């Protein structure tokens, strides 16, 4: 193994360890299935290693990983295998009711609202960053956030503050 490859592997491993959970959670929110989420995660990091482009900053890497995760999640739904199979019901349990209610309420949202809500409230990304990541207008992101919140308020029956 050459030094070049060892250095690349080390840096890749560091990135994988750093962003693995982020990618996994995002993939899980998109696929609703741990098995598919694992596949998506593996695919994302495989692409990361095979990617020849250099990343300037960590934010760049993060944005790249988020986009690839979303795209891979969408592509897995298009496979014939996915269309012909029914995913196993894997129950995700939480220790509190609020966590469970909030999490599953977000999971019930449409994909585009769910993604924006997840990035905004969990990844703490700003509207501008989300718009830049998906190459959308900020107004679009804002509208999607607003509609997502409205739907969550309806589901959660207004007991939460969406700050």
């Amino acid at each position: 193994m050459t030094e070049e490859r060892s250095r690349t592997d080390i840096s890749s491993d560091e990135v994988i360890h750093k962003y693995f959970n982020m990618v996994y959670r995002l993939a899980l929110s998109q696929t609703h299935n741990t098995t598919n989420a694992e596949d998506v995660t593996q695919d994302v990091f495989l692409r990361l290693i095979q990617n020849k482009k250099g990343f300037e900053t960590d934010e760049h890497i993060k944005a790249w990983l988020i986009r690839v995760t979303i795209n891979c999640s969408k592509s897995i739904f298009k496979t014939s295998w996915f269309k012909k199979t029914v995913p196993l019901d894997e129950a995700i349990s939480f220790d509190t009711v609020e966590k469970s209610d909030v999490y599953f309420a977000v999971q019930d949202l449409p994909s585009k609202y769910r993604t924006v809500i997840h990035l905004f409230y969990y990844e703490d990304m700003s509207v501008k960053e989300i718009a830049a990541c998906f190459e959308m207008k900020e107004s679009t992101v804002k509208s999607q956030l607003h509609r997502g919140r409205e739907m969550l308020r309806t589901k959660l029956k207004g007991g939460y503050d969406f700050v």
Partner: protein
Amino acid sequence: MTLFRKYYKEANDDIKASDDLINRVIENAHAKQPPIKYRKYQKYAVSLAAAVLIVSAAVISTPFLEKERDDGVIIEESIIQTPSPSNELASTNSENEQPPVTTETPTSNAEVAVSLPKINDSDKKTVKPTLKPNTNKHSYIDYGSSDEIQTSESQKLQKVSEETPQTPVPVENNIKENSVVLNNEEMMFGKHSILATPQGVENDEIHEKARQPELSSDYSPKIDTNESSADTGLAMFSGVLPSDLPKIDTDETLADTESAKEIDVPEDKYSSNISTGASDSISGSMGGGGAECGGSGSIAAAPTRTSIPTPNGYYVSSNSSSSTIFASDLGAKITVSYKYGDYSYSEPVYSVSGESISVYFTTNGMEYNIYAVGAEYSSVEELVNSII
């Protein structure tokens, strides 16, 4: 009010991937990587495969494409059409074994053993080689009494002449059984003249006639290979008739013989002689030479190329058995290629391309291809008209 953000974060924080999953993903990600050494060539694999496929297809298909020629240029054929008389004899004389035919161009002063058929009583009148030197232009072999000549033989000669204009037959052939060797050191036999043997003729009859040079009492043939080589197959020969050769009783000249241009030899002519009347054939008219060819011998029925006079302002720069090249001081060049062909006549077809002029036509049993570079059209036309 509880914060949505707080509970949503806590819920997602509870979701963690196992370390086993992480390690497995890392291993699979690295395992699927190609070696760094060739990784950079991955993207060229498809294009490289396509290039190899195209090149191999081109290499395979190239031989097939080269066979096709659509340039319209008549390829000059240097092949001298000289049917083997031995084959003809074999077909006509099944009883006798035919030795292999050697078709070597006679050279000057070459020694050739001429085997003549044994002159039987019944054949005396038919075999009459004349070996006396002859200064006449037209020499022939007198076959004795013309009455003895069978018409069938003339017909056979006619047939042979039509089919095989040039039948070089070594003298030694055909006279296997009945042979009288002529020890003539200087006798050469042209390819065409004597050697055209008619089909169906028995060995002891016309063979010798066919092969014998046209010799009269005054014949003094002279080999002129250089000049006669321009003519396809027809060659001059010279030789001194051996003294032991029987004289020809009748001495008919070729005065009445037709020009060698005639392909069909009339029976009456053949009855008296075998001459082909190659008065102006071959000879060395190529480039103006050939004056030395006093006695031109050629088989009666064999077509001969008409002499090609040198165009005005040109000289003969090269001469071969199938082509002649005229050149001028100004750098113009006219190449005349010829070969034996069918006996049809075709009008000259001129093709002008830039400074080159090409002409194709057939006449007198010969196919002519003329290619001129830097020459004037009038010169080429003059040449063509002189040939026709």
